[in-house]
């Protein structure tokens, strides 16, 4: 405050001196010499007033995942990956949230006033709710990621959007499933729930009662507004930390049951091997360096903030480690913000690049002590013979290596 006054006084004195003396340099002080303003202005429109939009200079977009076009000629959407490389912080904007569907589903266009949720089966009080009624119940707001089982990297992919774009993170608001189950009164012997959507094939998944009572959430909002149709408007089940398919969209029915129901979705998930089954259920500790990542170009040697996202289906991220020498030396990265359970967590690491070829990796250690494995470690676990291509079974949480070439270009280093 004091120094501001001081400056102002000096400025006034100087001004007086200039005005009183010869007009030294007066020509260069005309209005035309001020810094230029913006080239254009955005004219107000009803649309911009009602629901704002981003700058025309911001062009970041989702892309179809896995080489299958979306939408197809029939208007079906399949898998769409989020541009992680353009994201700041941990919230994925709703417009850019990744999307997965079962094959052959159009997006239901649901009138929320007509939508109902039924909870029935092994309960004392079967219940039917309108959306307004659900919103009257006590709510929670939590950060959680969702990740598709198909979010797996291979050596043909180039960018982080391709290798890791099938996961996103949002702030979700809704009712805890446990609140509804307590209202309904779960009967003895109720070990599972079956959650079902309203889309054409009425996708349904069996979810253990232990999880249903722990932290599952019936969401009607994400990132401060109603859940988007691509995410299950008007109601979506969130099963934090479980593979994407469990997070039933367009939710209309929950049946409390005594056994694993082997729905079509459950069947699609089946394997013969118990270890693989376990690895395709709760998502493991995972992380990826986003800056720098595949397809980027370092402008030269010097300081870089290496940053990325870490998450785990087992709980909070405890630590993230970064290596710049391909895994020989690991350093603790700095965790930015307070890690939340089953939520993307930001990490950063100060790095001086000396211009030599090197390999960056990150690994996540979660609060359960689970450690994100390298692909080599996965190969060893499954006794993959040396030289044979390593297959990551279940959900792929293996370490993503990025190779920096001497010219500053960044490349996917999966072999």
């Amino acid at each position, binding site marked *: 405050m004091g120094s501001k006054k001081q400056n102002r006084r000096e400025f006034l004195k100087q001004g007086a001196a200039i005005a009183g003396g010869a007009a030294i340099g007066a020509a260069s002080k005309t209005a035309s010499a001020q810094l230029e303003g913006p080239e254009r202005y955005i004219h107000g429109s009803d649309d911009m007033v009602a629901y704002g939009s981003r700058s025309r200079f911001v062009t970041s977009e989702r892309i179809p995942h896995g080489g299958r076009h979306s939408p197809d000629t029939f208007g079906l959407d399949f898998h769409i990956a989020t541009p992680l490389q353009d994201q700041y912080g941990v919230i994925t904007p709703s417009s850019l949230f990744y999307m997965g569907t079962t094959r*052959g589903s159009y997006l239901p266009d649901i009138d929320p006033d007509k939508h109902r949720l039924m909870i029935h089966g092994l309960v004392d009080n079967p219940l039917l709710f309108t959306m307004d009624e659900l919103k009257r119940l006590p709510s929670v707001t939590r950060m959680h990621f969702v990740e598709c089982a198909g979010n797996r990297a291979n050596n043909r992919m180039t960018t982080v959007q391709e290798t890791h774009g099938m996961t996103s993170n949002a702030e979700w608001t809704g009712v805890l499933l446990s609140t509804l189950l307590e209202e309904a009164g779960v009967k003895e012997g109720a070990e599972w729930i079956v959650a079902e959507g309203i889309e054409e094939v*009425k996708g349904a998944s069996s979810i253990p009662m232990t999880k249903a009572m722990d932290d599952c959430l019936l969401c009607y909002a994400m990132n401060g507004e109603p859940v988007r149709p691509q995410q299950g408007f008007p109601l979506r089940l969130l099963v934090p930390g479980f593979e994407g398919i469990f997070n039933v969209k367009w939710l*209309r029915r929950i049946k409390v049951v005594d056994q694993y129901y082997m729905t079509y979705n459950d*069947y699609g998930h089946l394997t013969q091997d118990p270890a693989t089954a376990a690895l395709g259920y709760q998502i493991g500790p995972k992380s990826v360096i986003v800056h720098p990542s595949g397809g980027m170009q370092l402008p030269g040697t010097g300081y870089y903030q290496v940053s990325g996202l870490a998450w785990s289906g087992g709980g909070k991220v405890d630590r993230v480690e970064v290596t710049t020498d391909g895994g020989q030396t690991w350093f603790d990265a700095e965790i930015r913000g307070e890690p939340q359970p089953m939520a993307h967590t930001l990490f950063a690491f100060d790095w001086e690049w000396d211009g030599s070829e090197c390999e960056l990796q990150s690994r996540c250690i979660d609060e*359960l002590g689970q450690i994100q494995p390298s692909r080599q470690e996965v190969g060893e676990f499954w006794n993959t013979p040396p030289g044979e291509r390593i297959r990551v079974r279940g959900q792929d949480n293996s370490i993503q290596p990025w190779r920096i070439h001497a010219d500053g270009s960044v490349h996917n280093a999966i072999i």
Partner: protein
Amino acid sequence: MRLFKLLIPVVLLLSFAAHAQSPTKYGVGRTPSAEEIAAWDISIAPTGEELPAGSGTADLGAQLFLEKGCAGCHGTNGTDGLAPRLVKRDVGVLENAWGYGRILPIRSPFATTVWDYINRGMPLGAEGTLTPDEVYSITAYLLYLNDVITDDQMVLDQDTLPKIKMPNQDNWAQVPDWFPNQPRLQGYPY
């Protein structure tokens, strides 16, 4: 302060009394009728308890497969359409049925899953239009095409369908019992 402390239990008691008629704590939502529940409930357990009355045979199913438009998307023989293949490839008889590929009427451990999926999701675009008899017949036909049943006159109904022994009935891995704060696989990767 003391008075306030004393009041709390009284208020709690009163509020419980006020809700005594409503079975639920919040009294929000309503009780669906038995008819509503029956109309909504399309789940079929592997034990088959929700299967409706009705019956069908593969013989009848062959005709329905054409009439109901299944053939239009899945091919006349269930092998050559734009939609997924419904019949195992001609690879002979395999010891391990997983080798036939991801084809529901051969890989599924339970015939109920085949019935349930056709009933809830097919024919795509006109789902929910098949009668129970039709679903029994088409299910029988797909099981017949995959050599799970060999008699095209065998009657499938709420009794016989759950008893069909699928080749993978005992050949699949149950997901682990889940508890909070539990690693997904002990000892993975080291």
